[in-house]
Every structure is written in structure tokens, then in C-alpha cells.
């Protein structure tokens, strides 16, 4: 039973979300001309279909205990070719994954404060280390020179205004831009 519940759990969560969003859709604030459908019609239609698929999967997995599921053509072709077996059998490293995700979240949060160059140099170096790369000189060179090159290309050639940071970090960014000839 626990196994069945585990299989059904993503669909139960999705069904609850769909019901909540449907409730929100009933409260959209609008004035439609008489006899004309409103902005809630399309989302409600999608949510009803989403809910219906979830109910089918819940019934199938939880009540009937049926594990059969029809798959898309590409899935079938790849299965027949055994193309994904090797990938699937590789051991996982969840710690690296969560470290990588955590680092990415911190990077996005600190980008505005640290500025693109400082934040990106640190991010690149730490990401390579999390990915188990150990050539320290390559890490240092790739992260610093890579960030500088990207900053130069996007600010000088593509004209994208990357974040400069605040306080001392802004000073560093402006100094680097001045050296690169970016105004």
C-alpha cells in the first residue's frame, strides 16, 4: 500500500494544486459583456483537464494498483535502443546536486550586491569544485578570465548592462570596465 501511495503522491499533490488554482480562478475580478466568456474560462478548462488526468493516475496507482502506462513514441524508441540504460544505471551524487542548487540560488540573490564580475568568478570556481574538478590553476584562470571575457563581450559588444554591485564591489566593477574600455 505504501508503494502505491508513493507512486500516486505526485498526482495527489498536483490535484490539490489544481483545485486550489481553480478556486483562485473563480475569484478573478473582471466584467465581461453578457453571454461572453471571461478570462477565467481558459485557465479553468486547463485545470479541469489537469485534474482529470491526476484523478485517473491516482485511481490507477492507488486503488487499482495498475503500473502500466502508455509512453510517448520517443520514450519507446529510446527504450528499445537501450540508450538510456547506461545513464540510468550511473550512481547519483545528491549532495553535489543540492550544493549546486544552493550555490545557484545564492548566486542569484547576491548578484545585485556583488556585481556580475565578483559573483560570477566565485560562482564559476565553486561550481567547478562542486563538480569535482581539481585543477586549481585551470579553475582560477577559467573563472576569473571567463567572467572578464563574458563581461567584456556583453557590455562592450552586445550592450547588455550587467549588474555592477554596490559599495566596494561597484568600485571593482567600474575599474575593470575602465581597463576594458567600456564606458
Amino acid at each position, binding site marked *: 500500500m505504501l508503494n502505491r501511495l508513493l507512486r500516486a503522491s*505526485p*498526482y495527489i499533490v*498536483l490535484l490539490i494544486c489544481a483545485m486550489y*488554482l481553480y478556486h483562485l*480562478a473563480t475569484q*478573478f*475580478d*473582471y*466584467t*465581461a459583456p453578457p453571454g*461572453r*466568456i*471571461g478570462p*477565467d*474560462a*481558459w*485557465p479553468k478548462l*486547463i485545470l479541469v*483537464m489537469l485534474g482529470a*488526468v491526476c484523478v485517473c493516475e491516482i485511481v490507477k496507482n492507488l486503488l487499482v494498483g495498475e503500473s502500466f*502506462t*502508455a*509512453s*510517448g*513514441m*520517443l*520514450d*519507446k*524508441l*529510446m527504450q528499445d*535502443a537501450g*540508450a538510456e540504460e547506461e545513464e540510468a544505471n*550511473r*550512481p*547519483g*551524487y545528491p549532495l*553535489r*546536486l543540492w550544493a*549546486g*542548487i544552493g550555490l*545557484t540560488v545564492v548566486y*542569484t540573490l547576491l548578484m545585485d550586491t556583488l556585481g556580475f564580475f565578483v559573483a*560570477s568568478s566565485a*560562482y564559476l570556481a565553486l*561550481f567547478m569544485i562542486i*563538480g*569535482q574538478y581539481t585543477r586549481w590553476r*585551470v*579553475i582560477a584562470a*577559467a*573563472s576569473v578570465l*571567463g*567572467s572578464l571575457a*563574458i563581461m567584456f563581450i*556583453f557590455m562592450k559588444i*552586445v*550592450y*547588455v*548592462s550587467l*549588474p555592477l554591485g554596490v559599495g566596494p564591489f561597484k568600485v571593482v566593477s567600474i575599474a575593470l570596465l575602465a581597463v576594458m574600455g567600456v564606458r
Partner: protein
Amino acid sequence: MEIIAGLGAGFLEVFQPMNMFVMVIGLVLGMLVAVLPGLTLVMGVVLALPFTYSMGLLPSIILLTAMYVSGTYGGAFTSILFRIPGEPIDVPLLWDGYAMARKGRPAKALGWTLCAALGGGLISATVMVFLSHPVAKFALTLSSPEYFAILIFGMASVVSLGGGSISNAFISLFLGLLIATVGVDSIYGTERFAFGVPFLQDGIEYLLVMVGAYGLGEVFQRLEKGFRGEEKLMGADQEIVTEFPTASEIGQLKGTFFRSSILGIIVGIIPGAGATIASFVAYGAESQYGKRRKEMGSGIAEGIVAPQTAATSSVGGALIPLLTMGIPGSGATAIILGAFLLHGVQPGPQIFVSSGPMVYAIFASLFVSIIGMCILGYFAIKPLVKVLDMPEPVVSAFVVMFCFIGAFAARNNLSDLYVITAFGILGYLFDKFKFPIAPLVLGSILGPLAESSFMTMMVSENNDWTVLIARPVSATVMVLAVIALVYPIHRQLRERRATRANKP
């Protein structure tokens, strides 16, 4: 005659130095991303997008199209030589391409691949040129029920042809459609699912969904599975040359070339299918109907020509619905659509009227790209293969960086970075729980189109949805959509019953 004249002018435009320069860059980048196992073709095209922000529309489309076409070819090198398929497209090349290389004829295998890419590419480009104009004219006659039915067919084919289970693909598609509803609705100005968050009120750009789910999500998956080490590849020191097949050898395979090209174009036109399915389907067709079907898998030329021809010819096919109806059929064409929209041009039935010379220049660029790709593949194969030596953690770190810049640069908005991080995590979770990503992305792209044609249809037909099955064109398309959905379920249930019946 009009088409030939337009194409001639298109060639003149393409041969401008700037256009040629970006094309070469696109071809090289496309091959590089196809060779590197950590980078997919779609991801590569996503990463190139921010570089197009400061370019004109034509060079942007030339760059992305060149990447798209050469991405269907570059991975063949590593599949044949090292048994490393850079892309799922190249998996069928392992069976005969690698087998031929193992028999001591890697140069010949590479030669067949080159001929297949060239032949398939040129045939599909020619078909695209002559088919696009009539398709656009036909599309002009369609009204909202027909257009809505076509979109439903597109979504149905994405679900039935893609990866993952069909129910999970449906869920993924519905989530994509829901994402497209976030923000202020364009007809009534009503705020939907924004939860009072300012950046959600502007809506979620599908490019962010795409960059996050495809780019970041893929990097997170690979991070968890562990990046490839720096082990030396078997056979990396061998001399890499390409040996062309003779004219008579090519003549013997003309049936395979023709069959696979047509299959590739048809599969390319169908939304959600793309080069990978084209490659597998063509290989399957050759195994069933080819002259030497019993020898398939033993290292014969047909097993190389069929998948490669179909993969490259799917590009021309995929560009037809994109240009003539504004419907992207694959991840790569969705990004090309994004580049069009970023430059204020909406592809669709009117495109020949509003931007005819540019469309012909795009057609011409595809011809030149295909020839350039083969020249590059012939002369630069050795340095291209060398990129496999690049450490994956370094490449992946830069992929993430370009994802962030691509997301940020579109609107210069830091909030977009949070959005792509969220979609990166969602992309990882989708993979983990076996939900396909393609329907999510295509749902977020087709969502606004589908909603506007649905609303227009309901308003013009007094809320009578049965118009979908009452008009001949829309009814036919709806029947095709139902077949697309029901057929794989029916086939797999039948196979399952047969397997059960055969069990003692």
C-alpha cells in the same frame, strides 16, 4: 518564377560579410554543442540567443538556423568514432556507423554521413522553399476554429511523440499552458495567478521556462549523475579522415536517400517530433523496407544514410510551420521564434507579405549553411572532436553562466534570474519523476496562441465549441489529433496483451 527570383535575392543578401560571418560562427557552435555530450542542441541554441540581442533580425536567424542544422550533423563524428552519441539524434548511428568504423572503415562511415547530411539537407531546403508559399497562402484562409484545431493537433503530437508516459506528458503540457496564463490577461486586463508578486504580473516569458528547464535543469541532472572524468577516449589518437563514397555507391542508395529525406521532412513538420524521432523512424523504415534490411546493424551504409539524412532533412520541415503559421514544432524552432519576436516580427501567414525578402534570405541561408556545414565537417573534424577533451565541470559552469545572462539580458530584470532558477529546479524534478520537459516548454509557448484563438472562436461562434467538429478542415485536424493520442495507447495495450498471452 517569383520563388526563384526571391531566392536569388536571398542568396545575395546571405553573401553579405556579416551574414556569412555569423553563419560560420553558428555552424561551428552547432557542431561543438552536438559533439559535447553535456550540451544538447536545444541548450546550445538557447545559449546563443543572448548574443543575438544586438544583431539585426536576419543575422540572428541565420546564426540560430546554422546552429540548428549543424547540430543535427556534428554528433555523428563522436558516435561513429568513439561510440559517444553527442545527442539522442545520433543514437541510431551507433548501430551501423560505429560498426562500420569497427570493421576498419571509419573514414568511409564519415563519408556516408557527410553525403547523407548534404543530400537530406538540400532536399529538405528545396521542399521548404517550394512548400512554404502555398502553405502560407492556405494558412491565410484559415479562421480561428481551424487555427485552434491545428494547435490542439500540435499539442497532441507533442504528447504522443515525446518522451515519458502519456499522462505525465499531458500534465507537463497543462502546466506549461497554465504558466502561459500567469500575469495580466490581454483581453480583460485581469490579473491571473500573480499572487501580488510584481514580476509575475508581467507574465512568465517562455524563454525563461526554456532556459531554466532545458539549460539549468540539464546541468543539475548531470551534476547529480556526476560529470564525465578526463579519461582518454579509445581511438582518440587514430587518424581521422573522411572518404567519400563513389557516385555508383551513392546511386545504389538513392532509394534510401529519397525515402529518408521525405520521412525527415514529414516528421519535421509535425510539432513535437523533430530530428531525433526522424532519425529513429528513418532507421526503422530502412530496417523494414530497405533492400538490405536483414543486414541492418552490421555496419552497412544504409544504416548510416537513413538516420543522418532524416535528421538533417527534418530541419527544413520544422521551419515550414514556424515561418508560415508561427507554430514552433521543436525546442530549437521555439528559440528561433523567440528571436523573431524579440525583433518585433511575428512569423505567420502574413510573413511573405510583410517580410518576403527576409524569408527568402533565410531559405538561402539554409542552403549555404548545409554546404558550409559539410565543408566544415570535412576539413575541421579533428579539432571538433578535440573538444571532447574539455572538462565537463568547466563547460557546465559556463553553460549556467550563459543561461543566466540569456535570461537577464532579455529584459534587464534580475527577477528573471529567480524565475529561471525555479524552472531549473523544476526541470530537474521533472526528470527525476519522469515528466517530460518538452510539453511544458511547448505549452508555455503555444499557450497564448491557443488561448487567443480559443477566445476568438468562442466569441465569433457564440460560445459554440462544436464548430471545431462541424467545419471540414478543423474536424479533419481534430480527428488527426485524436488518432495521434489514441494510436500509441492502443498499440502499447495490444503489445502488452500479446506479451501476457505469450507468457506460460
